[in-house]
């Protein structure tokens, strides 16, 4: 059966995936390419202005959904928003003290590091923390269907992502 679909469909419906966190990356990529094969403006290059404009809108929409679903954090945040739970990415106040203390320790370690070798343990610690929190995010979404708990994990992961960017900038300078 062919389901009707239009530009307003949510990302999961657009990619024919069940709403949730766990996702097969290869399958997502294949669907993205399959959809772009239908929609990309280059595939409608000789079909006149109306088809070109519609193709552009769809192609943009498909890329938007792809970028969101591909990234675990954006996917988690999107799921939360679909449940009516805003992630409030810029809101620091809701974070537990314990997490904020850990952040401060990391920042100090980064500031004091004198070379690449000293940053490697920090990188390993970040990787471990991220893996643990991604697992917790998956459980919150796929098992518990708890949007508030999921949003909390997304916020923590956003901090980690931003910190990792600073770490990479620092590594580039050594």
């Amino acid at each position, binding site marked *: 059966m062919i389901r009707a*679909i239009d530009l307003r469909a949510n990302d999961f419906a657009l990619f024919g995936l069940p709403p949730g966190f766990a996702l097969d990356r290869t399958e997502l990529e294949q669907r993205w390419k399959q959809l772009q094969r239908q929609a990309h403006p280059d595939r409608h290059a000789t079909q006149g*202005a109306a*088809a070109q404009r519609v193709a552009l809108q769809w192609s943009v929409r498909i890329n938007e959904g792809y970028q969101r679903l591909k990234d675990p954090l954006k996917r988690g945040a999107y799921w939360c928003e679909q449940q009516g739970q805003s992630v409030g990415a810029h809101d620091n106040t809701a974070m537990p003290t314990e997490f904020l203390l850990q952040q401060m320790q990391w920042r100090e370690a980064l500031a004091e590091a004198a070379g690449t070798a000293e940053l490697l343990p920090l990188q390993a610690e970040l990787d471990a923390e991220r893996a643990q929190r991604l697992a917790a995010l998956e459980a919150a979404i796929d098992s518990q269907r708890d949007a508030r708990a999921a949003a909390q994990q997304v916020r923590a992961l956003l901090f980690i992502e931003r910190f990792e960017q600073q770490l990479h900038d620092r590594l580039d300078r050594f």
Partner: protein
Amino acid sequence: MALLQISEPGQAPDPHQRRIAVGIDLGTTHSLVAALRHGHNECLPDAQGRVLLPSVVRYLPAAAQGASSGSGRQIGWEALQAQTQDPANTISSVKRLMGRTRADLAASGVLGRLPYTVVDGVGMAALRTVAGDKSPVEVSAEILAALRQRAEDSFDADLYGAVITVPAYFDDAQRQATKDAAQLAGLKVLRLLNEPTAAALAYGLDQAAEGLYLVFDLGGGTFDVSLLRLSRGVFEVLATGGDSALGGDDYDRALADALLARSGLACHASELPLAERATLLAEARRVKEALSGLDDAAQTLPLAATLQGRALQWQISRADFDAATAALNAQTLAAVRRVLRDARVAAAEVQGVVLVGGATRMPALRQAVAGFFGRPPLTNLNPDEVVALGAALQAQQLSGHPATGDDWLLLDVTPLSLGLETMGGLVERIVPRNTPLPAALAQDFTTYQDGQTALALHVLQGERDLVPDCRSLARFELRGIPPMVAGAARIRVTFHLDADGLLSVSAREQGSGVEAHIEVKPSYGLSDEQIAAMLQEGNASAEQDMRARALREAQVEAERMAAATRSALAADGELLRPEERAAIEALLQAQAQARLQEDAAALDAATEALAEGCEEFAARRMNRSIATALAGQNINSF
């Protein structure tokens, strides 16, 4: 048995057959044009059988021009030969100046390496020649026009359009300048295509390659790296990077500087007088190219030059050259590392490294690349031609004449991040680099003061966090915001990137619906009026020419739209109610009437009316095709 058809002389049996589309590689040192000819995708030669056109234009003094104005110039080989005798009027490497002000060029160090005089021009740098100040856009247009002429002579037909390649790392200003040059040369731009992507297309379709491929493209003046995944006809760019001010020219200069140091001359090549600089750099290039061709690495080559009154002579070995240029090789590998990191791919996962650009012939560079990846790079396509060939393949697809089956698709990305200035001179990134095209990304902003009714937006491109470190693309204002307390307004700014990677920005206050829209045409780009003025200067008949061209383009577009509409009605007519179908047919009828008049504007209007009338129909057809694709997927995966 069907009888063979013979058409009237000068008239093609099928107008589509005469729709010639070409690929153009507008290079720093050489340019090429490629097209499908006699069933082959090939680079088109000039009358002497040469496919390369040196990207060099020489301007001649007014006296040499005779009565006709604007024709006093030499393009290509003839100009290249004159370079050492007449460096000030012989413009080479103009690609490095596209979309750049004189101050930009001074800051990046390019200025001191050019053997001619650069002044401030309108919007961007200009070149002071005996025939007046010339914009880099005009110089590039001369080269493009020469290639257009070559293609039109090859086919004895007008061109329908061209795909023109640009370095992946070109920013918006450089892309706009390239598009302006094409317009000035009378070319319809079907697409600006990134050079490494073009090379991957030519390589991938030629070799039926699958997997992860890295294109390492070191041209005369630009360096690009792109990582692509090739799978079942989809060319997906994963990440791209490079340096738009690093190229083979820099190797010449590095060698020249090393020689000056060896002779105890306390100066750089950039500090020599124009004529001496041009001679020394040309000699350095000759020796560089000859060294690359030597089988015996120990052999030395002579280089002689008269500098500051001293006759100097050197013997140069490959080891000398490698020592002088090792830092440049390291610089290219740093960009490769960043691209791999962006794509989260390890060097060992890359299946093949495709070398593009004449500068990749240098043995030491090849060794450095091979050492980095632990495998020898692929060199089975001509590094000079592969970019133009890839562009021609896309030109054929975009003009409806696919050469190698139409079942391939290119999914490219934007090479540089785009953002807006926020409080404190910081850049808020809205479109990260390596975002797939086309794209639209939005971010909400708010007001800073109570009662603020306008918002100044400053659009920037680049990877750095501070405004002065990024390239300023445009400034615009959103006015008429209803007065509110600070922080209450919600202004959504949307960045749209089309399939060419060109940017437009719109801003909208969500509550009041106040909208501002801007096509980012950077301040150093040319306005349409400036282009029109240049066209008139260059050629008295240009205006007439343009009018005839506009009519032809309107006719081609009208025919295309009508044919597409008829075939859509035949294929999916059941998606329309009878009265909807009647409305479209009435628009078709009206457009057919307009095609009988020789009025480009009226015909364009009728075509646009038809396009608007078809939009809902086109949307329904696309919805159905997407739904069908998804249904097909689900059947396959269960």
